[in-house]
């Protein structure tokens, strides 16, 4: 019997064509979309969009969406959905108000209690989804109503505030500047450079190790172009922030969470199992994966991240309002799908989701600056979501 074990395919010699170049960008296509949209609004707003003050605001406005999107990505990869995140965020904000303002708890114990509250809220929903196989859409729709009700009950229908200063500083503060230079925030620049170097080191190490195993890798010019562009963007971004007041504390928290969840999803056993559960539940179960437990953990995690977002939002407004978080779930879910997650589960990347969230953020911000009416803003956002998912499905059908 003639059987051949074909050797790994070498990258084709010769310069890449434009089409091949574009395709080889793969995940970076999304980043390019963000760059294009940003460039458009930079032009349309007459340069307001990328001013340091506006960038800082844009980041602050979107931080809680990004943070919740990290959890939502896991939920969606697992093959579920969570509609209750806005209500949980509002509920935890109200809880924070009740504990810190009305009862006078310290910031630290109150924060711990709020995060625990988020975990309990997530577990209360995950239990039904994971162990009773109830559709997550219905369970979290119920949760959305229940937690909104609890929010109103806790706050008695009125706003509570202001918070202790050390708490509201989380949302409005910036990283300290020990080097205090005039007009430039040095620590933020140093952090930017370190993050960029770490990113490059990881990419280069991964490339060499893949090459030593003769796995197909991107050709050197493509690799250099991709990583060079990302590094430059990162540095430019930090420079802009540094020229205002430095990196906001919330953005630092967000950055750490993004790094942690990238690691969790790509490199840990839990992450790999999560993708398998979403990709093929039966195959995962037959392979010894405790699928119910993974689903349960995913919802608890979502609850905790919704709590983090709720705390940040409350700190930013410096008051807990009963309507806080209304409609957040839609922004979050849209960010995940624009970021390329599969609606049927099993696929989606952390970086994609972060970029997806910022595409929405830049759209919101840019359209507001131009002074576009809310009516058009909603329509455009809706069409962008539709287009993003269409492109994803179209490409899959072509394969």
């Amino acid at each position: 019997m003639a059987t051949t074990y074909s050797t790994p395919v070498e990258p084709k010699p010769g310069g890449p064509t434009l089409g091949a170049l574009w395709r080889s960008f793969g995940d970076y296509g999304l980043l390019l979309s963000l760059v294009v949209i940003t460039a458009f609004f930079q032009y349309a707003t007459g340069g307001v969009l990328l001013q340091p003050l506006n960038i800082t605001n844009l980041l602050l406005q979107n931080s809680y969406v990004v943070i919740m999107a990290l959890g939502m990505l896991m939920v969606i990869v697992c093959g579920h959905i969570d509609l209750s995140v806005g209500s949980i965020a509002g509920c935890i904000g109200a809880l924070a108000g009740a504990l810190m303002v009305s009862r006078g708890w310290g910031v630290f114990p109150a924060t711990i209690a709020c995060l625990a509250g988020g975990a309990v809220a997530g577990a209360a929903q995950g239990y039904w989804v994971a162990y009773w196989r109830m559709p997550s859409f219905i369970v979290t729709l119920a949760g959305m109503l229940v937690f909104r009700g609890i929010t109103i009950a806790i706050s008695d229908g009125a706003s509570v505030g202001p918070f202790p200063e050390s708490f509201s500083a989380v949302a409005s503060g910036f990283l300290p500047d020990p080097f205090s230079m005039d007009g430039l925030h040095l620590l933020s620049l140093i952090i930017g450079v370190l993050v960029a170097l770490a990113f490059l080191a990881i990419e280069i190490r991964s490339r060499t190790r893949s090459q030593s195993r003769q796995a197909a890798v991107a050709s050197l010019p493509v690799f250099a172009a991709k990583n060079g562009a990302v590094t430059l963007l990162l540095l430019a971004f930090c420079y802009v922030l540094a020229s205002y007041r430095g990196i906001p504390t919330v953005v630092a928290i967000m950055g750490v969470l993004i790094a942690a969840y990238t690691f969790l999803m790509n490199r840990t056993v839990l992450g790999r199992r999560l993708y398998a559960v979403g990709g093929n539940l039966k195959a995962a179960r037959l392979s010894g994966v405790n699928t119910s437990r993974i689903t349960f953990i995913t919802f608890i995690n979502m609850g905790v991240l919704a709590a983090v977002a709720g705390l940040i939002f409350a700190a930013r407004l410096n008051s807990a309002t009963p309507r806080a978080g209304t409609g957040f779930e839609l922004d979050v879910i849209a960010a995940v799908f624009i970021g390329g997650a599969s609606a049927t589960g099993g696929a989606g990347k952390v970086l994609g989701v972060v970029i997806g969230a910022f595409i929405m953020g830049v759209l919101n911000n840019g359209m507001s600056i131009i002074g576009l009416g809310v009516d058009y803003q909603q329509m455009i956002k809706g069409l962008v979501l539709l287009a993003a998912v269409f492109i994803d499905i179209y490409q899959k059908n072509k394969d």
Partner: protein
Amino acid sequence: MSQTVIARRPAEAERTGAEVILQMTGIAKNFGPVQALRQVDLTVRRGEIHAVCGENGAGKSTLMNILSGVYPHGGHSGTISFGGEERHFHGLRDSERAGISIIHQELALVPLLSITENLFLGNERASRGVIDWEAAHEEARGLLARVGLTDAPQTPVGDLGIGKQQLVEIAKALAKDVRLLILDEPTASLNETDSDRLLQLMGGLKERGVTSIIISHKLNEIRRVADTVTVIRDGATVDVLDCGDGEIEEDRIVSAMVGRELSDRYPKRTAKIGRGGFEVRGWRVVDPQHHGREVVRNVSLTARRGEIVGISGLMGAGRTEFALSLFGRLHGKQVAGTATLDGQAIDTSTVTRAIGSGLAYVTEDRKGAGLVLGESIARNTVLADLERVSRWGFVVDAYKVFDTASDYCKKMRTRCHDVLQKVGTLSGGNQQKVVLSKWLFTDPEVLILDEPTRGIDVGAKYEIYKIINDFADSGKCVIMISSEMPELLGTCDRIYVMNEGRFVGEFSAEAASQEAIMRAIQKNQPLGA
């Protein structure tokens, strides 16, 4: 032999005076590199019951899919003439309009809808879009009477047993004024009474002038109803038997079906059977849906080290249910019985524990439950033992994953670009090798294989048998469930026969034969009773 028989066929039809309703000539079809059909001829006379026999994978289903237009005209060579004119079917609707109805093994009924709604689905009794329920129910009652059912037409189909559902399917075909009815393994999942009823009905339809094609392995059924038998092997018609007058020669059918010597399709191996091994005693499983009904009834099995043990039986005999209940209680309720490995009791109560105890189960549903099709070969290979390729038990080492998977690809001769290729893009045989890699990576003592070569071409089958043999020869236990009897006869050292949830026969490799196994199923006497 085949050519002469085929050439004689139309002439004979003319001689007996019966009109030919269907004539398929020289049908050939490829799926990529795999040749499913090479040269099939099929001639069916009006008003007869025509049986098409062949082993699994011989090409029967492919042939029927071509006839019904599921594989549209243009994707195959050869000609089809039906009712005297040449036909080009481009889809099920085309063939249905011509009067051909096919009833598959997996029934195409909507369980929550009523019998009437199912009967007229896509063919509603309506005027200007408004359904006339009285007329529809009335007509349904008439159709049900024709297939011998007295259930109310309002009954949801899901409330009927599988046998009655099959009859509803036939009634549905009658509703469309069927001229040629094709039944694909109609009795495979039916019990004896229901099978009997169905075969009687086929006789009744014949008297009313409906022509039928029945696809079946069961020689006793064929003997009972068929007027003519066409035998297909390896994608070609090898024999046509007329049985209008007297007995069908069963031996001739069997030898035509099995064809060439079994030995050259299976790698040679001398079993080195050692001490100890895997034992199951008094295994019982209750059906999760029907309370009190046992799907596995007091089954005991031994697989010694170095031994390949087969479990034979018809579809629905309870073999998969047995395996799934053994592997982490994935099927059934109130699972009872003991499992031991080398005399030590082992815990198989969850999948994780079963894997920990040295069990591995290769599912019959490769795409649905064996692989995560959207992920790479590498990730699928390590899925069942991620801890082993991780640092500190939770950080997956991507390079270890890559190296492990590459090793297995080489060992298994999996044909792929590299292990980062998505598993969904591989052929069936190579996919199965990835499933086997996944389980061999868990380093099991007992490998349970459920239909390990289903839907795989002959060449890849051979390689998979070799992998299984090597595994057994390394002193491990193998349990192989298969519906392909030749496969069990060619690879196993011992074969159990399962029927209706019980073991009804046990044969050594020397004593086993298709006939002996079939006889054991028909006798249905539990082992040790």
